[in-house]
């Protein structure tokens, strides 16, 4: 989730706030931004309070009152009725305005020239998305809105593996990964964020091996390759574990066939 950070001077004074996906974005983010703990909703900050000087981040708005007015959709402006637009030009604005327009930009984005950033920006974290049943706990759902290109405004949902940060595009990919521990196919790298770099390294043999052995030791010691030629299951009674496996003439240790049972449960659940 991108939270508003006061980054000082807005590097994009000329940005059009009429961009349709931009206003969509503003709506999404605004809903997710927590209220300022220090300032009650509906209260206002006087931008001219210190030495009669307007804080930097609001300078552009004051210079371009028209654009500012357009960006501020009425539904985002609290107490707009007793708040005439004329006052806006004097530097008064509702506190929720911070989340609209320039405030929606993540700091990262602000640093990058707008034209070079081809990807999308994350607008919501796990809190705002509904969790599907099949997604194990700990995984993060990320909603991203494409900010440029012909499909700008389209929402993309990603599932992030906890720990590695590996990103998956669909439930199919996640479930395949959960079952096999491998990625479904050579995934095209969407963008060169850290998470994708990590997943690229993972698909290289060395690093992937180490992660595989780690996950095996913490979960199941079931080797699918080592299928025994024959197993004899002997019915020993009506207790809960009434079938005991033997390989050759040797009884299989309970710890081993508990693993078998776990593997069976995993594969059939």
């Amino acid at each position, binding site marked *: 989730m991108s939270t508003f950070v006061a980054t000082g001077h807005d590097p994009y004074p000329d940005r059009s706030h009429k961009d349709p996906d931009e206003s969509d974005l503003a709506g999404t983010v605004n809903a997710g931004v927590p209220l300022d703990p220090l300032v009650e909703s509906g209260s206002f900050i006087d931008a001219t309070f210190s030495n009669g000087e307007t804080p930097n981040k609001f300078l552009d708005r004051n210079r371009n009152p028209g654009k500012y007015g357009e960006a501020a959709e009425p539904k985002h402006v609290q107490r707009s009725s007793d708040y005439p637009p004329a006052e806006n030009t004097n530097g008064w604005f509702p506190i929720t305005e911070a989340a609209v327009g320039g405030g929606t930009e993540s700091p990262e984005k602000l640093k990058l020239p707008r034209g070079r950033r081809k990807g999308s920006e994350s607008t919501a974290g796990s809190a705002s998305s509904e969790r599907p049943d099949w997604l*194990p706990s700990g995984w993060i759902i990320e909603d991203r809105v494409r900010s440029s290109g012909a499909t700008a405004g389209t929402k993309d949902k990603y599932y992030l593996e906890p720990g590695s940060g590996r990103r998956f595009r669909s439930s199919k990919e996640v479930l395949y*990964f*959960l079952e*096999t*521990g*491998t990625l479904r196919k050579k995934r095209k790298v969407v963008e060169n964020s850290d998470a994708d770099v990590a997943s690229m390294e993972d698909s290289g043999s060395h690093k*992937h*091996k180490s*992660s*595989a*052995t780690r*996950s*095996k030791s*913490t*979960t*199941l010691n*079931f*080797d*699918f*390759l080592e*299928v*025994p*030629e*024959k*197993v*004899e*299951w*002997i*019915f*020993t*009674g*009506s207790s809960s574990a*009434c*079938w005991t*496996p033997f390989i050759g003439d040797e009884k299989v240790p309970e710890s081993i*066939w508990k693993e*078998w049972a776990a*593997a*069976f449960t*995993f*594969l*059939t*659940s």
Partner: protein
Amino acid sequence: MDGQGFADHIQLKPSAILTGTAKHRSVGAPIGLVDIGTSEKAYLFRVALPGVQDECKVKCEILRDGRVKIEGEIAGVGFLRDASIACQMRSQQLCPPEPFTISFSLPGPVDPRLFFPAFRLDGVLEVMVLKPKVRPVDGSFPHP
């Protein structure tokens, strides 16, 4: 005339009344009848083992190639097991108390470790056994 009708006429009552599927049973003991089912991941088989109990030394041998052999011994008459009563059987339609084996092949290879049996109280042994898993590239097996 249905079974209930027979039962009401004591004098007409036969030694056993069979209805439903039992009426169409094949000749001989029902032990060893086998049903085999398949699914995407597993094979299922059910074997009729009437008269088989926990002391019957039932053993199910299962091979990687899908061959299954069930061995055991039919229990004798329960009343006579611990008593010294001599009883001569006048008719013998159920399996006599003797060892048996039932052998059959599943349609394909299996992983004999991934074997899940359930011996039902009605004498039907049901087993699900999984097909060998298609190998993932590195054999890792993350838990869900």
